[in-house]
Structures are given as C-alpha cells and as structure tokens.
C-alpha cells in the first residue's frame, strides 16, 4: 500500500470512467480500472486503501431480478392459460347431456349438446403409441449407427439430413401422407386384411387407407428425427473410458454398446422418447389430414377411421358455436392431462435410478 500515491487523486470515486459506466460509487477504495487509463499509475486490482462499500444496486442484483422475473413469468402464463381454459370449458361441460369422460359422441353444437372425449382420447393415445412403437427402434438404430458405426464422413451429413427432417412442417407431412403415402399403405392394408384378417387389428371389410395405420406411420416419420438426434447426442456422450473398459474385458462392439453405451444413455433416451411422444400426442394437422375421422373406439388399425383430440379441434373449430368451442377446449384440457401423466411417469422411471446416475457424474 502506498506505492501508488496518485491513486487517490485519479480514482478517488472509482474514477470518472467507472462511475459513468457502472453508475455506482465505488468509494475511495478498490475499483475497476478505467479501461482508458493506460498510464502507469494504475492501482493494483487487488486494492490498496480502504475497503469499498458494497454497491446497493449493481448488475448483479439487476440480473438476478431479471432472471427471477423470467422464471416467474412461466408460472404466471401457465396459471393464466389454465384459468382461461377452465373458464371456457366449464359452461360447455355443464350443458353437456352425456358423460364427458365416457361418451364417444361429439355433438356439442346441437341444441341439446352431448359430447364425450372417450373416442378422441383413445385415438390420440393409440396413434401416438403405435407411432412410437414403429419409430423408436428405428431411431435408436440410426442413432447408434451415427454415433458408433458410421465413419465420420458419412455420419455428419447423415445427421444433418435427419435434423432437416425435423424441420419439415407437419402440414407437409400431412399432405404427403394423404396424397402419396396413402397408396402404399392402402395396398399393404388390403394385403394384411387378406391374410391376417383373423387378427382383430387387421380385420374389417374396408374401405382401407385413411386409417389409424396411415396416421400412425406419418406420425412415426415425424417423431423419428427428434428421437434420433437426441439419442445420438446421448450416445456420443458415453465416456470413452467406459467403452474402453468394456472392450478391454473382451467385448465385441455390440457387447460394448450393450454394456457401456445403452445403460449410460437410458435416461437420455427415455427423455427423447417422451419428447417424441409429446409431439405425437399434440400433433394436429398431419392427423387431421390423414385420419378418416370417425368417433369410434376400435382396435382395427387398417379400416378408414380414427380421430384424435388435436385433429378434432382443427377439423371442427371453424364451425363450432360457443358451447362447441368450450367443448373443444375441454378436450384440450384432457390432452394436457394425458401429456402430464405420461411425463410424470417418465420422470418417475428416471428418478428410480437416480442413485446410479448421480454417482456417475
């Protein structure tokens, strides 16, 4: 201390540059050095002189306030949406003549409105589950290929193409499904019906085509890139030393993947699948375009028909009256509840193994 006699003169109040920039009085002690003060008289950054007072308001408190506000905003928005939805749904539900949860009909615009969510909810879950059953194994295969088998020259462009697939708008998938993909699915359905009609899934007398199968397959293609690129990311993060440990024990490549890569990636893959399921459950326009739109609960996958909550909203919102819109909003709430339950179930699965995951970090 005392090595810088000019310090108190030039920097008594933190220096003019500092006060102007940070709008704080730094006291007569340590203060950030004015960047323009390049003369040799700079005080050491560690200080000298009296300890400065803590700043009352600074970037710190300001930024903390901002981020807290941003966090609170999420809650406010969610609560506001919930209030809005419930306030619109309740009047419609009170006019409903049928049981909302068990009825399969959907006539909310009649003078005696009667509507129920059963068929729609069933269709939503059915199409999404089939989409995942088809998409997840393929996605995991692609992800493993990209992360562990493909040479880098191939993996990079291929990964890029997969990501590109995720960017295609769903209406494009819907139109493609309706106009192009319909034909092969139709022929396949007819073939299935011819030889496997003894299985209820593939029974029925037609017409075939705009069926749960078509909708689910289009959904599967849409879910595929999400699950693929997240899983690839997770697989790539497997610690190299764990892979080496498996190889050094005499594992083949596939055994190494089974021993080190897949268990390590499991929580991440599960999260990826949940994101995919979220997209599938909420998918609107692609299903509105590809499904046959019937209000039935049927395990038949190939006969034209099927419907989902989101597709029904898109199809009928335009012609709905006040009660009809309330009914649609109520159906949206059910969709929200389904998504919530699925997500909580997934978290529960991940939570069960947290001991292993945490200690791995």
């Amino acid at each position, binding site marked *: 201390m005392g090595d810088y006699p000019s310090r108190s003169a030039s920097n008594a109040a933190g220096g003019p540059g500092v006060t102007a920039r940070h709008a704080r009085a730094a006291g007569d002690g340590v203060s950030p050095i004015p960047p323009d003060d390049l003369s040799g008289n700079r005080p050491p950054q560690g200080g000298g002189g009296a300890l400065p007072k803590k700043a009352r308001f600074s970037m710190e408190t300001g930024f903390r306030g901002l981020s807290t506000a941003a966090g609170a905003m999420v809650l406010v928005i969610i609560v506001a949406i919930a209030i809005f939805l419930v306030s619109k749904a309740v009047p419609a539900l009170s006019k409903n003549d049928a049981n909302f949860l068990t009825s399969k009909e959907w006539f909310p615009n009649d003078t005696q409105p009667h509507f129920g969510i059963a068929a729609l909810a069933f269709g939503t879950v059915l199409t999404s589950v089939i989409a995942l059953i088809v998409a997840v194994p393929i996605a995991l295969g692609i992800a493993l290929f990209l992360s562990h088998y493909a040479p880098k020259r191939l993996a990079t462009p291929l990964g890029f193409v997969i990501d590109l697939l995720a960017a295609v708008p769903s209406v494009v998938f819907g139109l493609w499904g309706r106009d192009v993909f319909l034909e092969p699915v139709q022929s396949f359905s007819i073939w299935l019906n011819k030889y496997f009609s003894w299985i209820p899934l593939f029974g029925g007398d037609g017409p075939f085509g705009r069926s749960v199968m078509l909708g689910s397959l289009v959904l599967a293609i849409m879910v595929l890139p999400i699950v693929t690129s997240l899983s690839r990311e997770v697989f790539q993060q497997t*610690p190299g*030393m*764990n*892979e*080496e*440990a*498996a*190889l*050094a*024990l*005499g*594992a*083949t490549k596939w*055994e190494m993947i089974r*021993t*080190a890569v897949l*268990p*390590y990636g*499991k929580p991440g893959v599960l999260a990826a699948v949940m994101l995919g399921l979220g997209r599938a459950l909420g998918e609107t326009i692609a299903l509105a375009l590809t499904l046959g739109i019937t209000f039935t609960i049927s395990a038949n996958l190939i006969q034209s028909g099927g419907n989902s909550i989101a597709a029904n909203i898109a199809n009928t919102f335009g012609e709905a009256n006040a009660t009809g819109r309330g009914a649609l909003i109520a159906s949206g709430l059910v969709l929200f509840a389904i998504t919530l339950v699925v997500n909580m179930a997934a978290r529960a699965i991940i939570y069960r*193994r947290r*001991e*292993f*995951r945490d*200690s*791995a970090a």
Partner: protein
Amino acid sequence: MAKRIEASNVSSYYGSFKAIDSISMTVEPKTITALIGPSGCGKSTFLRSINRMHEVLPNARIEGRLTIDDQNIYDPDVDVTAVRRMIGMVFQRPNPFPTMSIYENAVAGLKLNGVKKKSLLDDAAEKSLRSANLWDEVKDRLNRPGAGLSGGQQQRLCIARTIAVQPQVVLMDEPCSALDPISTLAIEDLMFKLKDQFTIIIVTHNMQQAARVSDKTGFFSIDKTGEPGRLIEYADTQKIFSNPTEKKTEDYITGRFG
C-alpha cells in the same frame, strides 16, 4: 495361469505417425515389469499394443511381432476379443461402469462371456473382490453403485473386474496416478499378491513405485517431440535403479531430465 509376453521389433503407428520404434523385450510369467519414462515416450502405446487396445483408435497398426507363449497376438486369424480376455487391462483413471452396482461391475466381464448361472457369478464376484482386497469393504453393499466408492476402491474394483475373467496377463496403465498415497499403497500390496497368479506389466510415472514393486524395469525415452519412443534400457529393477548401463537412464532416474 500367467504366460510369457515376447515383443520383437515392435513399432506402432497412428496413421503415418510412428509412436514407438522397434521395441524388443521379454516379460516372464509371474513377474512384475515396470515401464518408466517421460510423458509421450510411448510406454502406454506399447502397453496398449500388447492387448490390441490401441486398435480402438482409427488407423492404428503395428509392425513387428508380439507373442503370448509363442502364439502371435496379431495373427489375422486370432479373435481380438480373446486376446483381450487373455490380457486384461486396468486404466489410468478408475472406470467402473457408472450404471452398474459393485457386484455387477465385478462380474461384468463374465457376463460378457456368457456366464449366466447365479451361483457361478456369486462365487466369481466374491473371489475376485477378495483377490482385489476389496471384499471386506464392500460385502455389505454389493448392490450399491460402483461409482459411489472412493477413488482407490474404484480402482481396486476395476482390478477385480479385470481379474474376474481370469486373464493370463494384467496390464496396468498408470493405475495409481489418480490416487492418494494410501490407496496407492493398497494397490501396490495388491500387485504383490496378484504376482503369484498373473504376469503384470505396469506403466508408471512414479519411480519409487517402479523400484518398490517391479522385478524388471524398462526405460523408454524419446529424442524430441515427434520422434518415436524407444526402449533405452531393460534390466532388473535393482540394476536400473542402482547401476544403469545407459547414461540416459541414469539422468532420468536421478531426476536430471524428464
């Protein structure tokens, strides 16, 4: 168990880069051989060449001849996984499988080799954990995650996992460099014990460790960065540390370079 390793004129390459240049040495069964030398001199590369683990890196290859009891390790007809089962490896940083329990880690190698019978696995787990001097510390919590142990315990778990498959040779790549002195001592004691059953080759930066545990010592060095590593001297540990033939060896062990 325990077999002889013979290297003659082994050179190892990563792509066009030559990492080690014509190394020849014979490692007798049931001995501990230490490989010492400055960083980047190819000790680990040589070690990894012995069980073909260096092949994990793309474009890695060797020239020369490496044999285990006169069988060519690099014979094109030889199954590489069999080589690695026969020649186990312990790594620098403890690397138990994070998703597995202590028990599952110990028997991971056996499960990979298709052992399914519970009683066999139980026996092997206990035997290998006992051999690794870890059994008493973990016997009451075998189902807890292996990654939850201390660093030294994890490394002993990794040794248990390696010896559970009953290899002939155990390679150790700086097994104590991430451990505290007490854990290091525990591992060194363990090495003495394992010497009765296995041929052990250990890479270490710790010269006291080499002097303490090994029967023979090989000193590796490089002339300068970018040059391949060479085996400067290979002799009984006592000779290397008391009366080395090569000037370079003497400079290194007395701390004058490296």
